[in-house]
């Protein structure tokens, strides 16, 4: 089914109904990860390494086991030895042995906060007391945190025999290099030689955390029949099932994961941290076990997104057409390999058509928590560098920063970095909308300046399942396998209502557990409204077909004579119509229950593009930056529920602003995290922000029944360079290092930057 040509044909899509789970969430009734309790449950506590790198010579749990109320202790020795295999999880992938070790150290701790042991007891107090009594004998090893240091040939070795991919024939890299990934086209040297203007600069960023407000928590019970039930919040219950099964060496069918409401993820809840540990504690104790992270645990042991060191050279002709782009970056990976370097390469210059390009991404292991996906993983860092260079290039050529982007923007039919032609993408429309937006020409006050940047995220499709069933009174029930992190129940209900031709309120959406619906890839990659939405629509269409067959039986006409219109089966020849309810109540007599489960695997998603305009005011004496106005323009395909699409644009923009201005992982010289809390990990607060204006450009994806493109991730990509340019323009010095904290602005203003 192709996208209808005009959205005016829609009755539900494009409206702003109240989300189905809304009342539960505004009244405090919704059950999130930390809220679930099981009968006779024990409380767990995890012992974490105080060292960034150490060999674990021994763990003595005797004293802990003697504490009253303690029922089980678990260490790395309780985890089965695994054969190393690579598991793909959409945006990310990982090795089973790496990820299992990340859940609990098995001989060596690789970062401050790495889990080494766990205990379960009848109360949290007893568990905490016992955890403090677990004695771990550490042999401290040299550590390395900084990317440049970790990259060196003589850096402290984190993993002996580090698996290294992508190195050329005979190429030697330092012991902590895990990946080199290159994409190149054309003759770089020649192209640069012919350039009328070039910019060649270095940029850097520190690791940042996803910053979801809900800490990870779960309850697991290992039942007498050897089956395991897990209640947790995650971005993908199926992911938790698969990873838990892998680490514990179990068949997938033995594990059932019940999704609880999730309090934010942004990529950081694709990973598994505590569920296998809770399962093992439950196996040993014979009772359900709850494990919950503290905020400090979350900062020390989960997330973050890579820090980066990036070199960019851009060359353009006198008109501002790019002739060459040479980008080399190093991304940190934390203690184990990740995949952001690859996505970084793929998004480095993919918003522009550049005849000669070379993009090289290095991934470097260091003594930090294994990095996790964070909203458009890998894209914002390199985008900050390339878009900042693009702004510097525009300045050098005396061009308007939006004009230079319009000259170079990719458009439908042009080749992507891979060479395949782009489909119906909307970057040019976004740039043009930004150009005519009143914000772009609004006058600026003293010490204020404006910056712009554009950015992209590839989006994703992939496997999803949805089922639609009709209850005996005609109620429509939709079940999906993707958690609702930001209103997706509403968008599923809306697409189902639109397909059935009934009202939104008549659809009931459930997030099903892993044993109650077919496989659905995690909520990530901006894939859910696109792929799971497609599954919902196709399941609804299949149910409509059944309804038409039943109606034909009831009306005693040929099924070919029955058409589905506005929620009713219509027989033109008989001149009769039957409502959904009328068909449902008779279903017992016409063939039994009416339902359909549909699995889909669409890969015809389209990338999204955004253009952000940022105004900042800089205190000329102190270097304090205030964001005074902000506008986010994005091609959203089609906004199913525009309010929640705007919310994605606004939320991503503010995360990006936080990344640009104040957020950073700060390690001290001992290699321990110095700001493992919301006090000193400075995410934006309400008083820091202006309203975030949004402009939704709707250029539908023809491959989706309602034209959906993913919208969740693009919005975090442009803010870094947009904020950087605004501050740079305000003080007359480019800001090439994030975060742009007041002391850095002060130094730059005083010639020390």
């Amino acid at each position, binding site marked *: 089914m192709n996208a209808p040509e005009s959205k005016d044909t829609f009755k539900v899509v494009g409206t*702003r109904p109240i989300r189905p789970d809304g009342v539960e969430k505004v*009244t405090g009734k919704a059950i999130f990860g930390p809220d679930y309790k099981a009968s006779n449950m024990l409380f767990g506590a995890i012992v974490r390494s105080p060292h960034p790198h150490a060999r674990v010579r021994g763990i003595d749990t005797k004293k802990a086991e003697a504490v009253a109320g303690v029922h089980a202790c678990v260490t790395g020795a309780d985890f089965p030895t695994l054969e190393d295999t690579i598991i793909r999880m959409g945006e990310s992938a990982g090795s089973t042995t790496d990820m299992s070790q990340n859940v609990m150290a098995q001989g060596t701790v690789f970062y401050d906060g790495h889990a080494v042991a766990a205990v379960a007891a009848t109360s949290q107090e007893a568990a905490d007391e016992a955890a403090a009594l677990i004695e771990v004998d550490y042999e401290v090893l040299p550590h390395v945190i900084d990317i440049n240091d970790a990259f060196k040939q003589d850096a402290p070795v984190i993993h002996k025999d580090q698996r290294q991919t992508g190195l050329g024939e005979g190429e030697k890299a330092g012991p902590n290099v895990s990946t080199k990934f290159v994409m190149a086209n054309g003759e770089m040297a020649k192209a640069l030689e012919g350039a009328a203007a070039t910019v060649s600069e270095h940029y850097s960023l520190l690791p940042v955390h996803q*910053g979801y407000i809900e800490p990870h928590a779960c309850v697991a019970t290992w039942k007498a029949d050897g089956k395991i039930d897990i209640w947790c919040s995650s971005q993908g219950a199926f992911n938790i099932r698969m990873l838990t099964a892998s680490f514990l060496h179990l068949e997938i069918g033995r594990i059932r994961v019940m999704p609880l409401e999730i*309090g934010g993820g942004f990529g950081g809840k694709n990973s598994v941290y505590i569920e296998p540990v809770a399962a093992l504690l439950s196996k040993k104790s014979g009772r359900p076990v709850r494990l919950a992270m503290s905020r400090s645990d979350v900062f020390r042991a989960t997330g973050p997104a890579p820090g980066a060191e990036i070199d960019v050279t851009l060359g353009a002709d006198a008109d501002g057409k790019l002739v060459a782009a040479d980008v080399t970056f190093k991304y940190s990976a934390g203690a184990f390999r990740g995949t952001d370097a690859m996505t970084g390469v793929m998004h480095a210059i993919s918003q522009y058509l550049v005849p000669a390009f070379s993009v090289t991404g290095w991934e470097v292991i260091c003594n930090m928590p294994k990095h996790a996906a964070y909203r458009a993983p890998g894209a914002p860092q390199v985008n900050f560098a390339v878009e900042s260079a693009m702004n510097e290039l525009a300045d050098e050529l005396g061009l308007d920063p939006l004009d230079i982007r319009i000259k170079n923007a990719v458009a439908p039919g042009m080749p992507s970095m891979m060479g395949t032609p782009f489909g119906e993408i909307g970057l040019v429309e976004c740039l043009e909308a930004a150009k005519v937006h009143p914000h772009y020409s609004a006058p600026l006050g003293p010490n204020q300046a404006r910056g712009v940047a554009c950015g992209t995220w590839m989006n994703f499709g992939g496997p999803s399942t949805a089922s639609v069933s009709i209850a005996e009174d005609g109620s429509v029930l939709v079940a999906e396998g993707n958690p609702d992190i930001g209103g997706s129940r509403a968008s599923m209900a809306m697409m189902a209502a639109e397909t059935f031709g009934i009202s939104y309120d008549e659809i009931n959406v459930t997030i099903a557990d892993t044993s109650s619906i077919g496989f659905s890839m995690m909520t990530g990659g901006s894939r859910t409204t696109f792929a799971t939405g497609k599954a919902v629509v196709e399941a609804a269409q299949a149910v409509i077909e059944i309804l038409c067959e039943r109606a034909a039986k009831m009306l005693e006409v040929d099924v070919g004579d029955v058409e589905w219109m506005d929620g009713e089966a219509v027989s033109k020849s008989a001149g009769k119509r039957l409502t959904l309810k009328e068909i449902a109540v008779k279903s017992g007599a016409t063939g039994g229950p009416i339902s359909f489960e549909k699995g889909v695997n669409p890969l015809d998603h389209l990338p999204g593009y955004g253009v952000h305009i940022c105004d900042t005011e800089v205190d000329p004496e102190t270097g304090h930056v205030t964001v005074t106005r902000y506008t986010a323009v994005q091609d959203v395909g089609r906004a199913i*529920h525009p309010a929640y699409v*705007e919310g994605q644009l*606004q939320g991503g923009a503010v995360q990006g602003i936080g990344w640009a201005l104040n957020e950073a992982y700060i390690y001290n010289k001992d290699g321990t995290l110095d700001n493992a809390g*919301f006090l000193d990990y400075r995410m*934006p607060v*309400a008083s820091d922000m202006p309203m975030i204006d949004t402009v939704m450009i709707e250029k539908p994806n023809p491959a989706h029944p309602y034209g959906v493109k993913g919208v969740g991730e693009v919005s975090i990509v442009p803010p870094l360079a947009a904020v950087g340019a605004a501050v740079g323009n305000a003080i007359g010095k480019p800001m090439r290092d994030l975060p742009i904290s007041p002391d850095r602005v002060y130094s730059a203003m005083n010639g020390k930057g």
Partner: protein
Amino acid sequence: MSKIHVTTTVNGDEREFLCTPGQTLLDVLRGELGMTGSKEGCGSGDCGACTVVLDGEMVCSCLVLAGEAQGRSVSTIEGVAEGSQLHPIQQKFLEHAALQCGFCTPGFIVAAKSLLDRNPDPTETEVRYWLAGNLCRCTGYDKIIKAVMDAAAELRQERTAA
């Protein structure tokens, strides 16, 4: 360790519980009293997800020892709606899509109500500073601020009508 016996009022109901000297009001609300609407995002007073009103003033319940609640009056998110009748702030949060994941939402609603109970006509800046102790990572605050401003306007109208 001997536990402390505490009698307190929660959302108008007299409640009794036993707690240890180190337990916080949030621990008891979520644990002993089974009211999980107040959330723990940080345990250090930096996120506001556990905001409750204690004797008329909003506080982070993670920074209040449970023993301190003796004889006090506590209002939580569970007491904001009257039965199935949502408070206008709750209704406006829904209408403005002022929540995405919804985890910070109870804290925001309790804090916003505390503001509007004393200042029926706050400026945007006043709302932003009042809510600065409540972290939201999903929305960028835009729709939250609009929902609170709109709820304030509606409450003013209700008062005028009354």
